[in-house]
């Protein structure tokens, strides 16, 4: 499960480096609101696993200060929605300080927690922050999908000398994924800034991150039966973004669809499109791009509306068909 992978990453890195500590709401005695830190407080005690009061701005600031002074905090936001209270410290205190100090003060901190929509938690608890954080130089922004991603990227984030925003997804915490032997090793680290081609294909490129990768893979399986081969790219890293992998794929498939759970405008898909269209891939595209995203609405609570506010497999499948001109609606759509 992704939850265990994250736990393992923290456990291994805490065992490896005394400077690493975890703080956040309910991370210690309660084992984490979503049980991601289960057992760590018992193992590492009060000094290194710290329950904070519900004061994000304050504890994020404390965490950043401690990183400036040589520690390596893992700062958990119970969900990234609450990172808005602390966002000034993420941006102004963490991301910009190395630059402002001309390289003197680095800030090795990981901000992590679940990001994006969960189930039935409505507008204030469902926002995706990938594009916001991706906008800001000085940050590295990761968005793992599978257990291997989760473990390898979190370990990379903790070892990194710069501030990393690590966007998890509550909905996949409990999802079981195979872990290779290599991934189970305590030296398994995935490089920051590289995307993963989850599945190769030649007809259309699906670029996605986090839980939406799952949707893409499902859609790809279904389309395979209809003779369409999708190449599925799991971004893993939102910033820096691995444009090479995307561009290469688009030059092969000539078709691009982006898939994400966040809002459509100024989102991850927008940046992917812009990168492709300012690149050499410009001349290779045979059809307009489609962004499959969350709907442009605050998240509603009611189940059927919530479902319509989030991308579904059929949105991807239909988009692929339209893009490849396999559907009668395609003509209408393009006009």
């Amino acid at each position, binding site marked *: 499960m992704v939850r265990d992978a994250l736990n393992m990453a923290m456990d291994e890195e805490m065992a490896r480096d005394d400077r690493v500590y975890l703080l956040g709401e309910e991370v210690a005695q309660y084992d984490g609101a979503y049980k991601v830190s289960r057992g760590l407080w018992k193992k590492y005690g009060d000094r290194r696993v710290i329950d904070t009061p519900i004061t994000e701005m304050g504890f994020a600031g404390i965490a950043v200060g401690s990183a400036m002074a040589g520690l390596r905090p893992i700062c958990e936001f119970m969900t990234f929605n609450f990172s808005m209270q602390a966002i000034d410290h993420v941006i102004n205190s963490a991301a910009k300080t190395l630059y402002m100090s001309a390289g003197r003060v680095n800030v090795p901190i990981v901000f992590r927690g679940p990001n994006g929509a969960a189930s039935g938690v*409505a507008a204030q608890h469902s926002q995706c922050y990938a594009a916001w954080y991706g906008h800001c130089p000085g940050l590295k922004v990761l968005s793992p999908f599978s257990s291997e991603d989760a473990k390898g990227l979190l370990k990379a984030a903790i070892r990194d000398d710069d501030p990393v925003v690590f966007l998890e997804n509550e909905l996949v915490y409990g999802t079981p994924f195979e872990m290779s032997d290599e991934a189970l090793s305590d030296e398994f680290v995935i490089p920051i800034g590289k995307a993963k081609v989850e599945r190769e294909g030649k007809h259309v490129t699906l670029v996605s991150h986090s839980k939406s990768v799952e949707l893409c893979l499902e859609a790809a399986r279904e389309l395979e039966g209809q003779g369409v081969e999708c190449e599925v790219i799991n971004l893993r890293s939102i910033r820096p973004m691995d444009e090479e992998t995307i561009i290469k794929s688009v030059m092969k498939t000539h078709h691009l669809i982006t898939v994400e759970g966040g809002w459509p405008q100024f989102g991850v898909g927008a940046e992917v499109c812009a990168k492709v269209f300012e690149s050499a891939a410009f001349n290779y595209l045979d059809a307009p791009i489609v*962004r499959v995203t969350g709907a442009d609405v605050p998240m509603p609570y*009611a189940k*059927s509306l919530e479902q319509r506010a989030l991308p*579904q497999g059929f949105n991807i499948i239909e988009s692929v068909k339209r893009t490849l001109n396999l559907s009668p609606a395609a003509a209408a759509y393009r006009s």
Partner: protein
Amino acid sequence: AESASLNVLSPYKVYKLDDGPPESVEVTRDDGLKFYRQMQTVRRMETAAGNLYKEKIIRGFCHLYSGQEAICVGMEAGLRPTDAIITAYRAHGWTYMRGVSVLGVLAELTGRQSGCAKGKGGSMHMYTDNFYGGNGIVGAQVPLGAGIGFAMKYQGTDNLCVALYGDGAANQGQMFEAYNMAKLWDIPCIFVCENNGFGMGTPVERASASTEYYTRGDYIPGIWVDGMDVLGVREATRWAAEYCRAGKGPLLMECATYRYHGHSMSDPGTSYRTRDEIQEVRQKRDPITGFRERLLTNNLATPEELKKIDVEVRKEVDEAVAKAKTDAELSAPNLYYNIYKQIPEDYKRISRWGGTHESIIIV
């Protein structure tokens, strides 16, 4: 008897105040029966909500108010309907007390269109006249409440706003920012801390360097009230409201209470406290049982009358549950309504696949 004179269950504590609310309070039979009915309704409604959650008909977060009923009932009785209230996500009892029917609450919880936010808000986001939510962000409702109080003064009324928050929220920086401006500008706002002993799994001592919440406004006077005593809460509220209406500025109030259930339905609520502890509060401090006793001892009600209320309450809640389960959800196009009140010309509703054609939107 038609009325009785009773003492509040615990003496008030006051901070930076010369006097406090009276400790001997008058209660009429009608009011007594009303409070009993209201508390029972909230209790039953929350039990029903818990069951609906277990049946997976309510989704997401669901924070129950059971144990804290005396606060919403007592405060509402001490306020005017034109006063405003704003609270956090533990909002069901308050929503009901502000005039939303049991169905309006439960159907919101089941996400149906009879819900007071038509199913768009859910557990944490309920609204009605002079009730501004229901806020999912710990502490955010407090500056909002000060702003509502600000508006009431600006508009020249003598209404006030009550802004409620938990013991966990009490440490949030924005509380202190709101206190400061409320005091500087004499905003008619009562800041009420519902201290139920825990913020999720964290007991107050591990979260707050001072747990004397009624003193944490520093320059703002405060009162401590037993939040399990509906009469004490009503009396303190009346007194506080008068203080604010007189233009003396804001006031703090701490209501000591207890939450019976876990923090939300996904929390069993027993890892950070013992079952015995919960049991003991239920037996010794329960706001409803205690009040029931007092009504009977003081001849304000007969067991039969109370029984009858119980039956009526049960019926009301059961009916609401049935409707809340079968009521329809809003239709698909509603996904795109209520984003703006004033829709810009040529505004495009952007669906989850880039298309803005109606045909795409509604699938």
